[in-house]
């Protein structure tokens, strides 16, 4: 081949392309992560904005969803590679069919960290409710049957030994519908996440009965991967390493600074709060209030999840015939 300027250019271009491909193959791998635009996904936002994923050689793209259930579906269908969100009946069903596998834990509902608010309506019909225990025999607004709110109420019923069937659950599909029904006194009580509950409490439309985590703590969120991602354990390990760095920052710096439910504004916490504020499109002052608990190692309360699975199966929300071993990948999970 005669070496002219043109052939030189071509071969140089070709070399560049092959080099770039090689770099992609062994260097940065692309991972799409499905998360909620909520402060409870804070550890993921920190890992992303502070470059922890990049350090692990990952090119992470965050995909935002407005409910937990669609994230599980998107992970099963392969539209995202990793999902970080709350357990739902749908997630258990998809995991039971082998479409997704759980590899780590996320937020936990624990005492002292507000997450699940039990509310009574300020209308006369809610006057008889004094504590969370009093939901027995009352109408309680929730988003969906088989949601995390439903399970939380199941734990309260277990603790106070009343039948869950004595609570009249009213599924209203969206949080705004639940808030609307509670305001109008159409339900006597409701269970809502802290972020949706606070405005109702502040405006006097609802009365706080208590926080679910204070009465019955449980594992709320998890990290799960698609089938395609599962075939690449090295990739999962790299992802989780960066993810846990985010968890550690969130727990050791942010949560450690919390006093009276508000995180302190210090040179250490500021960049973390900024990362969360930037990804949730919310002001820092709003983020500081009521941060959810996240384990510093991204650990998963395996026994708690087993209990959750059994509860969903017992109530017919999840198909029977599979256990925890089918849905949790023991190669990656750390126990608290």
């Amino acid at each position, binding site marked *: 081949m005669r070496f002219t300027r043109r052939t030189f250019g071509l071969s140089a271009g070709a070399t560049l392309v092959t080099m770039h491909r090689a770099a992609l193959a062994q260097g940065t791998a692309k991972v799409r992560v499905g998360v909620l635009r909520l402060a409870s996904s804070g550890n993921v936002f920190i890992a992303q904005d502070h470059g922890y994923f990049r350090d692990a050689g990952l090119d992470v793209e965050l995909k935002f969803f407005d409910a937990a*259930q669609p994230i*599980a*579906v998107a992970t*099963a*269908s392969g539209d995202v590679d990793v999902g970080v969100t709350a357990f*739902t*009946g*749908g997630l258990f*069903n*998809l995991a039971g*069919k082998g*479409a997704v596998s759980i590899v780590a834990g996320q937020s936990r509902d624990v005492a002292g960290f507000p997450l699940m608010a039990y509310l009574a309506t300020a209308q006369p019909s809610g006057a008889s409710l004094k504590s969370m225990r009093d939901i027995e025999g009352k109408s309680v*607004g929730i988003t*969906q*049957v*088989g*949601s995390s709110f439903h399970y939380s109420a199941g734990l309260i019923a277990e603790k106070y030994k009343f039948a869950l069937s004595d609570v009249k*659950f*009213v*599924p*209203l*599909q969206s949080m*705004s*519908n639940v808030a*609307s*029904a509670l*305001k*109008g006194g*159409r*339900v006597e009580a409701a269970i809502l996440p802290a972020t949706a509950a606070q405005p109702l409490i502040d405006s006097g439309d609802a009365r706080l009965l208590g926080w679910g985590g204070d009465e019955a703590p449980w594992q709320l969120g998890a990290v799960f991967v698609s089938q395609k991602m599962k075939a690449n354990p090295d990739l999962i390990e790299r992802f989780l390493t960066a993810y846990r760095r985010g968890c550690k920052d969130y727990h050791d710096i942010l949560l450690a600074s919390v006093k009276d439910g508000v995180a302190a504004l210090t040179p250490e916490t500021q960049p973390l709060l900024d990362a969360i504020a930037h990804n949730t499109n919310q002001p820092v002052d709003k983020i500081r209030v009521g941060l959810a608990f996240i384990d510093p190692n991204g650990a998963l309360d395996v026994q708690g999840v087993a209990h959750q699975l059994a509860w969903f199966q017992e109530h017919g*929300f*999840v*198909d029977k015939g599979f256990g925890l071993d089918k849905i949790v990948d023991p190669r990656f999970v750390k126990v608290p």
Partner: protein
Amino acid sequence: MSEADVARLAPVRFRGRGFVLRPRWYGSLAAFVIIVALWQAAGSYGWVSPLFLPSPLAIVRALVALTLSGELVGHIAASAMRIGVGWVLGTAAGLAVGLAMGLWGLARSIGISVVSALFPIPKIALLPLLILWLGIGEPSKIATIALGVFFPTTIATYSGVDSVPRTLIRMAQSFDLPFAGIVRKIVIPAALPSILSGFRISASIALLLVVSAEMIGADRGIGAFVLQAGNLMQTDQLLAGVVVLSIFGLIVARLIGVLEARLLAWR
């Protein structure tokens, strides 16, 4: 007369048959069987994952389990009540308003603008308001269906009345038939075909809306069941509920067919 002329005079075959469609009952059955067989094969041979498309057998199994546990009857009874009451209320109101719009100029000018303004509002967007106004009991669910049925019925009735041949009305007027008689003996029978085809559409809309109506605080009903199965990703149960809705649709279409045969026998 030449031979060619004789040939021309020979009786001509009757050609003006029109396009008479004779239903072939085996056609729909065969299509149905082939589709279901292909679907089952796709599941059995693993062409598609059972998660994304449960096989017909899995759906039948889910249906049988639901029937045996008695759940299905409860769901169907709750939905049938909501659909029935909602449809009757919406249809009655739609007929009255549509008739008024067809007969009086003032009602028409008011009606057309109001219907055009309100028809395109998605009823689901109004759910939080409906909860506040009517609560989370039966009234809000029935109202959702009645609202959805009302508008198509109004439009079908109004356009049916509008297309009654003017000559018939003029003739009745020249025979000095009173107004009520004209409406009862000419306008309504002539508008009936349009009204009945409106019923076909509104009945399907009622079935469609039962799912949205049961979004608000329903623990029983086919719509609530389908929603719950969807939320929990129990795809076989989801499709079992959808099959029940389709059967509902077939029954309703059959009923309206009978109604058409009865009421339009004069044609």
